[in-house]
């Protein structure tokens, strides 16, 4: 257990380190010192990951809100979990990018650092206006990454339309709620008594914005193109967390009454997304697209859990989102390095595959179990339908993925390959263990507070 001010300082440090690294990278000469740029990013991400792990292990299990005049942070178990996952994914991205990105190295690393810093701040900020600004920065950074480094298209216009539409909706919702209440702090807004219509307007705008950014059906077009692995890791792993976190932290606490009224309609609509992505994943031929569809299917399942109106569903959604990000990242990394084809590493590289298949004792099973538990309690038919689609569908998706991977040539293993394989697998196992540890008590308290004991 550490003192509050210490945890505040640590989290502030965590947020600022990537920005400082970005500033340092600007000063480095790209032509002669490319390797230095990459190493700065890797070390920065590694340091951030180490700090967030320390925060996770030693953070006191109560919610800490630090108010300062223009900048305040809300550090709780959920935000630390999401920050940890983001830090890990960014670290893997920078490690992969070391050998993958050969052109515009400076631009890439600056964008990644800015993205990381913005995301870490996004998960702990309390000011809703700052939240929407950060969202815009993240979307801009992601757009530039996609535009500079996409292998197929130079100017991804449909990405622009969908992503920025999402941002516009969020900003509209933010402006509306501030104009109605005059309050910018999310914590204060969650206690504010709004009329049903006011909540409904805010809910619709904010939900639409986050739905566009999450890339769910039918707005998923921007997730399914070919990018370098490092960019794809960020898109699938990190940015996919934004939508869910925004809904848990902002949408549901502020528009509680609307949430209680419309939660079942939304979960039924999202079920269409689950069915579509689960079935279409097995029809893809590019392994990146398969993983994109699997990831989006899992995000849709998380959304169903969020809108099941049960604390178990929301907690399951949190587990699901985190595990999905880490597992997809590990599969991308492992497959990119050809490690799935290697029989000597099969015993280790099978763990992410079994995680996607919801093997018990692995973390994705817990999340899906809790979500199906809450859905069955809420609506038996939809719960059975979710279960019946998800399990066989994921099996076929993973089977298709394995078939695509087996097309590659078996690779000779080098020492560096263990750096790509071991950390993701260890992280998955550690996530599974942490899910069942005592930290769940704090999570349940926080979630119950959000849902008002619903």
């Amino acid at each position, binding site marked *: 257990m550490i003192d509050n001010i210490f945890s505040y300082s640590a989290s502030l440090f965590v947020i600022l380190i990537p920005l400082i690294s970005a500033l340092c990278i600007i000063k480095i000469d790209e032509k002669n010192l490319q390797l230095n740029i990459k190493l700065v990013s890797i070390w920065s991400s590694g340091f951030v990951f180490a700090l967030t792990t320390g925060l996770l292990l030693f953070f006191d299990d109560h919610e800490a809100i630090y108010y300062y005049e223009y900048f305040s942070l809300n550090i709780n178990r959920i935000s630390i979990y999401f920050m940890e996952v983001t830090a890990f994914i960014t670290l893997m991205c920078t490690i992969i990018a070391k050998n993958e990105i050969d052109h515009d190295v400076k631009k890439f690393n600056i964008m990644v650092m800015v993205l990381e810093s913005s995301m870490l701040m996004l998960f702990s900020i309390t000011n809703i206006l700052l939240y929407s600004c950060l969202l815009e920065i993240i979307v801009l950074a992601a757009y530039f990454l996609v535009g500079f480094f996409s292998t197929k298209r130079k100017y991804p216009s449909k990405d622009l339309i969908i992503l920025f539409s999402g941002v516009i909706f969020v900003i509209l919702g933010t402006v509306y709620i501030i104009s109605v209440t005059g309050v910018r702090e999310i914590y204060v807004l969650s206690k504010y008594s709004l009329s049903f219509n006011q909540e409904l307007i805010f809910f619709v705008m904010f939900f639409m914005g986050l739905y566009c950014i999450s890339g769910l059906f039918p707005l998923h077009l921007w997730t399914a193109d070919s990018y370098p692995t490092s960019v794809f890791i960020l898109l699938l792993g990190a940015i996919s967390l934004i939508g869910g976190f925004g809904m848990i932290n902002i949408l549901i606490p502020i528009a509680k009454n609307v949430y209680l009224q419309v939660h079942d309609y939304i979960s039924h609509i999202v079920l269409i997304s689950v069915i579509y992505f689960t079935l279409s994943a097995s029809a893809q031929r590019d392994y990146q697209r398969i993983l994109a569809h699997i990831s989006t299917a899992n995000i849709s399942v998380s959304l169903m859990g969020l809108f099941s109106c049960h604390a178990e569903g929301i907690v399951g959604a949190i587990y699901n989102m985190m595990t999905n990000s880490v597992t997809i990242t590990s599969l991308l990394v492992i497959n990119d390095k050809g490690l799935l084809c290697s029989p000597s590493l099969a015993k280790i590289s099978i763990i992410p595959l079994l995680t996607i298949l919801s093997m*018990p*004792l692995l973390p994705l099973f*817990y999340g899906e*179990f*809790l979500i199906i538990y809450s859905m069955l309690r809420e609506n038996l038919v939809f719960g*059975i339908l979710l279960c*019946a689609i998800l399990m*066989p569908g994921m*099996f076929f998706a993973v089977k298709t993925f394995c078939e695509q991977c087996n097309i590659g040539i078996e690779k000779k293993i080098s020492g560096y390959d263990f750096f790509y394989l071991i950390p993701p697998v260890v992280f998955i196992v550690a996530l599974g263990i942490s899910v069942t540890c005592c930290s769940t008590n704090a999570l349940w308290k926080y979630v119950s507070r959000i849902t008002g004991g619903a």
Partner: protein
Amino acid sequence: MEYVVLSQLITLVLGNILQQHNFIESEKYKYYVPLSSFITAVVSIVFFILQIRNPSVGYHNLCDLCLAKNITFSFGVLSDSLSITISCVVSIIATLSNFYSIGYIKKNTNTFLVYINALSFVMVIFVAAKSLLQSYVALESMVIIIYLMTRSDKKSESIGSAIAFPHKWANVGFIVSMIVIMYTFQSVDFDDINKFSMQNDEQLDVLEFISIFMLLAIFVKTAQFGFSGWLTKSMASSSIPFAAVVLSSTVAPCGILLLIRLQTIFECSEFVQNIMIIVGSFSAVFFATRAMLCFNVNQILVYSTCSQIGLMIIACGFSAYGAAIILFVTHAFSKALLAFVIGSVIHALSGEQNLHNMGGLFELLPKTYALFISATASIICLPLMSSYYAYKVFLGEILNSEMYLVALPPIIATSILTATYLFRMIYKIFHGEKNLDETILAYMNEDNAYMNRVSYIALFFAIFSGVIFYYAAYADEVWRDIFAFSKSRCHPGILLFISTLGIVFATIVCKSVKPIAIQWLHHGRFISKWLHYGGNFISKWLHHMCFISATCTNIGIKLNKVHIFTGKHSVVIGSVCIVLIVFSYLAIRITNLL
């Protein structure tokens, strides 16, 4: 019981370590894993004897998984009569398979030993489970092991999904019922489930819902009618020692143990019990018929297992759980023996599995022939054999019930068909004309010490397991209560009638009776044509919906092409069997008098 689990784990780890360094195939180290497995079997037998003498229930908790305030799963080792008995059976069969593999498999022995021991370990975990989640973990692990075992054979890479996909539907049923149990009873421990469902009269519809979904999972796991594709495909490409372990005591019958553990839930609904009786009866007869019309010995073994498991499900449908357990135990040893003997034949014929390419091996493989007859005798409930005692309890329970007329004809039909297809195998393999290649004949021998000795030990268990279990269970009141044996027993005359009928029918079918054969063919031709055309259409639809692979078409085609075997020694065998039956009947009468 913890020591059994620990010794199984040690065997598995040892096998893994030796496999990594390719030590198992060297002369110096190849006995390490089988010996370790033997120690496990000895430990389990010791615990079994201790449990007989002093029945007790104990639980050793390893860890608790807490997902939420009211969602806690416990992982541990449950020591009760059922878990100790089944783990004893599993350990013994795993040991026998380990030693058998040394003689049977020449290449990649290490891989097979690892998979066999992994499967045994997981089965012991399943049997010692106190909560549903632990059972679910064990069941999933079994599927993964079979999938990996199938994929290790390069020729059968494509059937992996055909094996794993049906289990996903089983998982749907399992997860849904587990979750509904969780929020109805606030616990997934078997004891709590049974206690609360007995007290719960108001939520019978919920219990029925749970039992229907769990039954879906069980039917897939036990490869019953409509869900058997995965087992036939996986066993078609696997080796005999692995098949022996899978079919006899681990993967195939594990659903029966789940039924027994959750018995009170299934007893709350008459509708569900009726489904079990109907599906079990239909599966028993259907698979016995398929075995009779099949020409691949490996496939016959699989269909035979599915048929026998159908009988166990019928027993559970009549709430005769004691009968189901004794059927399980006796079936495990008998099926293991049959698998070993079939393996000896395949090994002697250098991998040949088609009955058309066998014949006339009576003089060349006399020991194997004697073992085959013994294995057949142990399955078809001949007196003094283990299945005799199992059927005694089984039919006793059935005949005491009001619905005995529903189940009795399928049971009798299954017993007759079982005798028929087993004797048909004997005639096809050991009698008649030799259809073998001369090169195979030149190298044929049955002097593999490991395989023969293992088969003799398996024969001992196949003969005496029934009587040991029967008298151990009946002698002790506590054991009788634990296994829910009622005092009813079937009259020996009925069993003798069934076994005699089976042997006589087998003899007639295989005997050279041309007029009868021609008449049967003529009658059969119309039916077989209808089955062929009509069944073709239905089977295509059923194949996609229910995983049946052109069943009706197969029956139609096979009936059209039935070869009536003109066994020269059929009269001799028939006479020997009749003499045996008469002798045994006299022996029983004398014993009763004494």
